[in-house]
C-alpha cells in the first residue's frame, strides 16, 4: 500500500490505517524507539504511543513524507521518556551518542547556558548544509537515529573504524562551527 493510501485511511478514520502504517514503517519506528530507550518494553510502549500520536495528528496534518513524520513523533516521545527515566536506566545507544557529543561540545566557561530552540535548530541545519551527503548520513544516523556505529558501517558499506574516524572529524567540525556561531564559549 502506498503512503498516500495509508494517509487516506487515516482521513477516513479507518483503524486499518494503523495496521498498514505498522506493516510499512513499523520497523523504522521501532528502531528509533529502541535505539533511544535501549529497552524493548519501553520501546514497544513508545511505538504504540507513536501510532496514537499519528492517529491524533492525521487529520488535520497531511504529511508529504510519512516515514519522516512518524519517526519524528517516535523520536520526540522516546526522548521525553528517556529524560523522565532514572539515571540508572540510561544505557541506550542514545546515551552513548549524547555522551560523544557532550564531550565535544562542553563549554570551557562555566556560565549557565541559555539557548533558544529556534537558534539551535537554525545552527544545526546550517551546519548540516556544510557537510557532504555521505558525512551527513553518518552524522544523522548516529545522532538523530541513534544507530550503533557497527550498523552505520554496515549500511554505508564501510568499516567500524572508518565510521568512528569520520564521526570524530565531524564532531570536531561541529564544535568549531558552534564556536564560530557563538553558541559555544
Amino acid at each position, binding site marked *: 500500500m502506498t503512503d498516500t493510501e495509508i494517509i487516506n485511511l487515516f482521513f477516513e478514520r479507518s483503524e486499518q490505517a494503523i495496521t498498514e502504517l505498522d506493516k510499512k514503517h513499523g520497523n523504522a519506528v521501532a528502531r528509533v524507539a529502541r535505539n533511544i530507550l535501549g529497552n524493548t518494553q519501553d520501546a514497544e510502549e513508545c511505538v504504540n504511543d507513536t501510532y496514537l500520536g499519528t492517529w491524533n495528528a492525521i487529520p488535520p496534518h497531511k504529511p508529504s513524507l510519512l*516515514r519522516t513524520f512518524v519517526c519524528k513523533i517516535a523520536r520526540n516521545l522516546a526522548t521525553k521518556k528517556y529524560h523522565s527515566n532514572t539515571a540508572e536506566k540510561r544505557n541506550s545507544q542514545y546515551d552513548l551518542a549524547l555522551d560523544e557529543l*557532550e564531550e565535544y561540545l562542553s563549554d570551557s566557561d562555566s556560565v549557565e547556558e541559555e*539557548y533558544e530552540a529556534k537558534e539551535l535548530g537554525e545552527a544545526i541545519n546550517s551546519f548540516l548544509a556544510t557537510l*557532504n551527503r555521505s558525512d551527513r548520513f553518518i552524522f544523522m544516523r548516529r545522532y538523530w537515529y541513534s544507530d550503533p556505529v557497527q550498523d552505520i558501517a554496515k549500511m554505508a558499506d564501510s568499516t567500524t573504524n572508518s565510521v568512528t574516524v569520520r564521526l570524530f572529524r565531524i564532531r570536531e567540525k561541529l564544535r568549531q562551527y558552534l564556536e564560530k556561531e557563538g553558541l559555544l564559549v
Partner: protein
Amino acid sequence: MKREAITMMLNGVDDNYISETAVFHPEHIQETHERIIHLKKKRIITFALAAALMLALGISAYAAWNIHQKRQSELREQMKIEDNAVTDYKEEKLSDAQIQTEGVTLLSTVNDGEFQKVYVNISPVEPEIARNFGRMEENEDGCMICYDFGFTTDGESFGFATPAILTDTDGTITMEELIDAAYDEETKTFTMECACINTMFSFDKPFDLTLVLFRETQNQNDHTTDGEIIRTFGTVTVYPTENTVRNITFINPYSFENAATGGKGKVIGVNLSSFNVDILVTHDNMENMYSTNVELNEEEREEYLKEQLGWLQAMDELSQSMVLTFSDGSSRKGFGILSSPLENGILINHCGLGNHSIDINNVVKIQIGDKTVWEHQ
C-alpha cells in the same frame, strides 16, 4: 553545552535531512563546500569576435560558445591559476567543433594530488532537473528518488559529477547558490566537476569520459539502491595532467604527543602542490595502527580505538595550526586532513586546499602554531 541543549538542537533538524538520511546515498567522499572564493570581475570576451560569431553561427551556437568561454574564465579566476602560476592546470582550447549546443564540452583538467579533476559543460539539462540536484523525494511506493549526474571511463563503474564551484562567497555555500552559479538557464548548460580516482584511468594515456544522468531509487526497507541511466550526454577524451610537488624536509622535525597514550610523534616535512598539502608524519606504534592484518578482541579494540583517536586528534590539531607564509607576506592556514595513507613507513596526511590554489614556489616559511619549523634561507 549540556545534554538537554544538544537534544533541543537535534530536535530542530529539518525534515529534509531526516528523510534524506533514511537510507544510504552512495556518494564518493568529497570535500565540503566551505571555500572562500575571490572572483575578479573580469571578462575576456572580445566583442568584435562575439559579434562575428553571432553572425556566423546564429544566436544559440553563440550562446553555447559564450557559456564555455565564460566558464573557463570563471574556473581560472576562481582557482587563481594565473596569480599562482599553476602549471598543472590545463585549459582546453575551444575549437569550432566544440561550439555546440548539446552534449559534453571539455573545459579544463587539473590534478590535485588525490584526484584528476575534469571540468565539463553538459547540455541540455532542463531547469527542473538542475534545480532539484541532490534533492530526494519519496515516491508512491515509499522509495526515495533522486536524480544524479554520473561519469564513467569504462561504462561499468561510475563516479558522481557535482556542480563546479563558481561562486564568490565569504563562507559556506548553499546548494542553491552552487546551482545558481553553475547552471545557465538560457543554454540549459550545467558546469560539472568530475573527480576521477586513479583506478579509473592510466596516467600514461588519454581516456574517454562519458557523462550521464541517472535516476536512483532507494528502497528504505532493505537499504538497496537501483540506478537507471536515463540519458547519456556524450563523451570527451581527457589527457591526464601532472601533479608537481615541492618536497620540504624539516631539519628539526616538529614533535607532538598523543594526549590519550603519551605516545610520541614527529612531523618530518611537507609535500606542497598547487591544490594540496601533505603533512608527513611518523609516530609510535604506527605500523600496528595502520596495518590491516591486526586481529583484535573487544578489549584490545577499545584500546586501539582510543590510541588511534588520540593520534587523529593530535594530527588534526597540528594541521589546523599549520601556517604557510608566502614571499609577499600573505599566508594560508588551518588545513583539514582528508585522508591519511601509510606509504613506505611515512603517514601522509593529505590536506586538500579546495579550489583555491597556492604558489608552491613562493612558500618561504612554515609554522606549526607559534613555532617556525622551516624557513627559506
